[in-house]
């Protein structure tokens, strides 16, 4: 009991420390989700504390992902004018993004004969973590694997996004933002904000709407796995 409580304490403590540190040194390798998780995994590996002890109180933190998802209604509401102005580009961008994300992962994961649970966790990799974990849970994947693939896809887009923009010769800021938001969610949106404010807003809108759409389509996506 005491150990579980200590685990909750150390999780929150490490998070606060790394958040402060990251604000001063914003490099992707000391992003809180990466650094804190790695630290805690190491900690659990080096000490005899079991995962069950660890999660006993920490599951309450996971529970908060529900309110996080609901909270996305506020930024969506605040950008309603932008949505109205570019509804066609946004809608089609989101639909193309979600469909391509699901089928590309499905195709590649089957090509490599990955286990079924992993396939299900991989197809949600390009949407924001709270949505990805929710969908992974719904279709029978593993929310924690999904969370890792999401971070992985996000970092990849963040680091290489500008290269692909140049390779594919994408010109409008609208499209640059949309592709980063569709493939790499919040971490990609951070890159989009470096390109321009417009690209950043578009990226976060595409990310939020894609997450919602994937969540609504989750029962259909489940049907892809007989």
């Amino acid at each position: 009991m005491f150990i579980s409580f200590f685990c909750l304490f150390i999780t929150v403590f490490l998070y606060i420390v790394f958040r402060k540190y990251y604000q001063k040194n914003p490099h992707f390798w000391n992003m809180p989700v990466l650094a804190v998780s790695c630290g805690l995994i190491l900690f659990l590996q080096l000490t005899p504390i079991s995962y069950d002890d660890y999660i006993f109180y920490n599951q309450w933190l996971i529970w908060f992902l529900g309110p996080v998802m609901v909270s996305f209604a506020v930024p969506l509401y605040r950008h309603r004018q932008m949505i109205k102005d570019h509804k066609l580009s946004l809608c089609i961008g989101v639909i193309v993004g979600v469909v391509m994300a699901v089928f590309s992962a499905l195709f590649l994961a089957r090509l490599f004969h990955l286990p079924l649970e992993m396939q299900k966790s991989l197809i949600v990799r390009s949407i924001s973590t709270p949505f990805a974990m929710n969908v992974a849970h719904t279709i029978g994947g593993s929310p924690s694997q999904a969370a890792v693939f999401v971070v992985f896809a996000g970092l990849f887009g963040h680091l290489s996004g500008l290269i692909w923009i140049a390779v594919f010769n994408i010109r409008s800021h609208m499209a640059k933002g949309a592709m980063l938001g569709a493939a790499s969610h919040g971490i990609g949106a951070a890159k989009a904000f470096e390109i321009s404010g417009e690209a950043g807003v578009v990226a976060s809108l595409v990310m939020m709407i894609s997450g919602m759409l994937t969540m609504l389509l989750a029962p259909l996506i489940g049907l892809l796995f007989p």
Partner: protein
Amino acid sequence: MMFLFVMLLSRLIPLELIEDGSRFFISHMLLFFVPAVVKLVEYKSLLLSHGVGIMVTVLLGSVWVMFSVGFVVDKIYAFELRKKQEKSGESECS
């Protein structure tokens, strides 16, 4: 979430009431992922044995998503602009 969005649009819930709360949850959402990511300790061998497949799936999949979305939105955005210009052109003529 959609429910809340509709409530905001219809002004049944004032934005000020939930603004601070939502900002708190979104800015600290990383904290809530951490315990879930830590669950990876239970999948260690599985992830290591499929490392290459996972890498290729995520990387190629992401590139493909970026290409298709970037390409399509670029075209549609150009179309949207053209339509807007045509509209403003018409109004100038009349």
